[in-house]
């Protein structure tokens, strides 16, 4: 691996290790509320927010993995996210090579 590659791996790994710091924020992002939170705020849930189902069921909703604690969930989610980014990027790189 090139020296750049080594530095970059260390860089990404250290950020991944630090992700649980994000758990310190208790509140959701402004506007990204669940139907329950909106109900508590307004006394009703707007129709579309109450009835719209996600197009497909997500694998790891809210970066929480059943059976794992918050800390481990966050690490595993970060690793999965980083892994998927690399898988797609490698795929793109290979498709470029094949085309040329």
């Amino acid at each position, binding site marked *: 691996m090139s020296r750049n590659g080594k530095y970059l791996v260390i860089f990404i790994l250290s950020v991944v290790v630090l992700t649980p710091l994000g758990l310190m*924020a208790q509140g959701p992002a402004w506007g990204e509320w669940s139907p329950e939170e909106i109900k508590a705020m307004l006394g009703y849930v707007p129709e579309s927010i109450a009835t719209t189902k996600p197009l497909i069921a997500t694998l790891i909703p809210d970066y929480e993995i059943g059976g794992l604690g918050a800390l481990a969930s966050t690490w595993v989610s970060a690793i999965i996210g980083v892994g998927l980014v690399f898988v797609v990027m490698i795929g793109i790189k290979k498709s470029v090579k094949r085309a040329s």
Partner: protein
Amino acid sequence: MHIPDGFLSPVTYIPATIAVIPLLVIAWKKTKEAITDESFAFLSSLTAFSFVIMMFNIPIPGGTSGHAIGAAILAILFGPWVGAFCISLTLFIQALVFGDGGLSVFALNSLAMGFVASFVAFYLHKLLDGRIKKSVVSFVAGWSGIVAASAVIAVVLGMQPLLGIDAAGHPIYFPFGLNVTIPAIVGSHILFFGVAEGIATMLVLRFIEKIKNTNSTKEVAL
């Protein structure tokens, strides 16, 4: 800033989806051109970084939170189209696997955080580069990109009460108007998350420059 499913009227997300498709096709082509053996490690690491930095939720007064997006770094190093593609890829993984941002409204999240943030950061950087201190340019580019993206999200969400009211007089989609969304979303990005994006842009660009310089025996073309 990730808009969930059900928050927007189809009148909003259907045209946005139609608009974002050709843009993503261009961004995809530009990204394929940009991926070389030399740039690959940087491009994929910095895209992964954008995924991870979006998990760093920063609590702010008022009980809410937010985060940086890392768009400016990619846009400055690889151009705005590549930045837009890489951030959109991150957003797509977040929506698909983690339910962070709705898939049906993906176009809006991609337009705001991917395209608007990348293009604003890139052109501000281009405009200011060489005129003032490098770290200040990086900070301003990052800050402006995310603030511009937050303005798009605030306008899109704030429009929703005008686009559907049910029989009881309640909004059908996102319930708060522009008078609420602009100060809440744009205000919090001006004061907090823009600063986080600015600092992240500054630090990471400095880091990238440093590792490229220490590796001067090998020419690294970005």
